[in-house]
């Protein structure tokens, strides 16, 4: 099977510049076209003001902020635990991953992020990887649908439904999971979940393979997105891209490998990177990442301490009454636990003064939390570094010189989510 490197790629960045130069000599009239904020290809509420010369884009100005809710301001006014439900609504296509990232960020401030029980680490890794599969399935399905391949969308949504079922039995909610707690998890794996997950993994691989047969060597698909919107390695780094968009440009950087957290360093997986940085590479990277996530999930299911039903009663929370809520039974019968419960609920987890930054490899890229604490249960300032926001900032760079009809393809390949971009 041919790889991407085998295909001769003309220099598309130079071609775009040439196209713009050719336009200079023509007597065309420029037209300003407003795309969005309610446009199906913008996957939410992104507005792009395009300046067109005929069908050619000469300038693109993205306009974000339609979904701004002031999450950073809200975070300054509540305890660390109370903010967890807000992280569901950052990347609403992969709430479990945002939950994990946020919990780890606060735990880093507390200094316990590397002292979590192994069972908790494994469950969190599984959450993050399930979320990654779910987000990539949606991203690719919507990408393909925007290009006219509706079948793929139906396939991916069938699989996402199963992930929602897994989320439901794991967390009690299909969508707004709020599963993690500072120092652990809200609950252990329910009975039968491991088998349900194994069944899903066997099925999703079949479906991913089917997607591949529909797209990867599909002449229409390849001709449409190959060699389109090439992002060079230097540009990808300079514009701060992260996640599959950075790796699609050939930068081998993944926080799970480069700054391993949880139990990722004990797991065996590969980081796919692209060769040229075009839309097709970003598609291939996401496709392979789903397979790697399945691989990680299999390992976690095999290795998880305590096994499926946790007969040996492995802990899922850190053993610290000042961080994790005590069991309800003890609150009613023991004075110390009652005090801990009372303090945790009224004051929040008492964090030390200081500042930390933690970056989590979310499906869309690096989701970072910069927390500045002056001590106590409430952050003084919390800055959310959202990958979609940063990834979208490259639009004015890559759009000029492309055709109007390419916009949906490029937006689909960048795979952003506005809930996280606008915060």
């Amino acid at each position, binding site marked *: 099977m041919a790889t991407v490197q085998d295909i001769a790629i003309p220099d598309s960045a130079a071609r775009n510049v040439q196209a713009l130069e050719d336009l200079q000599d023509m007597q065309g009239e420029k037209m300003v076209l407003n795309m969005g904020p309610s446009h199906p290809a913008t996957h939410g509420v992104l507005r792009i003001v395009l300046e067109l010369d005929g069908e050619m884009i000469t300038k693109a100005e993205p306009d974000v*902020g339609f979904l701004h809710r002031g999450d950073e301001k809200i975070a300054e006014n509540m305890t660390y635990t109370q903010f967890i439900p807000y992280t569901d609504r950052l990347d609403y296509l992969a709430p479990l991953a945002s939950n994990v990232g946020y919990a780890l960020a606060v735990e880093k401030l507390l200094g316990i992020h590397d002292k979590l029980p192994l069972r908790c680490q494994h469950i969190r890794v599984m959450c993050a990887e399930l979320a990654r599969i779910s987000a990539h399935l949606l991203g690719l399905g919507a990408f393909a649908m925007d290009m006219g391949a509706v079948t793929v969308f139906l396939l991916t949504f069938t699989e996402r439904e199963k992930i929602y079922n897994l989320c439901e039995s794991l967390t009690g909610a299909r969508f707004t999971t709020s599963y993690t707690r500072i120092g652990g998890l809200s609950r252990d794996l329910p009975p039968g979940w491991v088998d349900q997950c194994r069944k899903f993994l066997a099925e999703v691989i079949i479906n991913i393979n089917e997607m591949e047969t529909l797209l990867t060597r599909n002449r229409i698909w390849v001709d449409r997105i190959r060699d389109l919107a090439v992002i060079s390695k230097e*540009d990808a*780094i300079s514009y*701060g891209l992260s996640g599959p968009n950075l790796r699609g440009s050939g930068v081998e950087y993944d926080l799970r490998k480069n700054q391993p957290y949880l139990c990722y360093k004990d797991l065996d997986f590969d980081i796919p990177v692209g060769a040229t940085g075009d839309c097709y590479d970003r598609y291939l990277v996401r496709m392979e990442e789903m397979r790697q996530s399945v691989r990680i999930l299999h390992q976690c299911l095999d290795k998880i301490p305590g096994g499926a039903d946790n007969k040996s009663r492995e802990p899922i929370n850190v053993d610290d009454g000042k961080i994790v809520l005590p069991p309800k039974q003890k609150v009613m019968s023991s004075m110390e636990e009652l005090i801990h419960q009372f303090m945790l609920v009224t004051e929040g987890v008492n964090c030390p003064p200081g*500042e930390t930054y933690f970056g989590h490899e979310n499906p869309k890229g*690096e989701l970072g939390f*910069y927390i500045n604490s002056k001590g106590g249960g409430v952050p003084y300032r919390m800055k959310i570094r959202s990958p979609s926001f940063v990834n979208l900032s490259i639009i004015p760079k890559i759009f000029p010189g492309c055709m109007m009809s390419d916009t949906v393809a490029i937006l689909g390949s960048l795979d952003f989510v506005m809930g996280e971009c606008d*915060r």
Partner: protein
Amino acid sequence: MLNLDLANQLKAKFGDLISEPAEFRGEITVKLADAELIAEVCGFAKNKLGFEYLVDISSLDNYGEDPRWTMVYELRNLSTNAELRIKTDVGEEKSELPSVLGVWATANWHEREVYDMMGIRFRGHPDLRRILMWEGYPYFPLRKDFPLAGKPTNVPEVAFTEITPMEGGPFVTLPSSGDAISREPRVRTPEE
């Protein structure tokens, strides 16, 4: 260890302008005494120390203290995984510092966001407009003296404010407090 070495190299170059590196949870933070030099320091960090990737720019409002603002830059080297945080203070009456857009292209939107949320201006930024709030919004919502509940403002004008072509036409149901029969378009005469 690598992070500390790089911070010390930065200190060796700029001397007393860079504070002693502070460590917390394995992260190294240095403070730059003069915010006017931030572009120069960042340029040196990128070109000589290899911090090619700007992770994030955040801002702090030290309300009630002087200087009021603190800028926070998170730097990273993708190949060695070295990380460094540079902080610098900005006074309230000035509220301005040089842009680092010339060093990293990603600073563009980060600086616009800081301007939008805190009202700190960046000299040399070619397009310093609001980004998350709308153009013409009068406040800076992430300042500590801005209430959580917000302040009443005029909402931005919508793009199309003219009446839709069908409004008032003979076949359009009118919104009114009347009963269903009087709102029925077919009973209305066009003169009404």
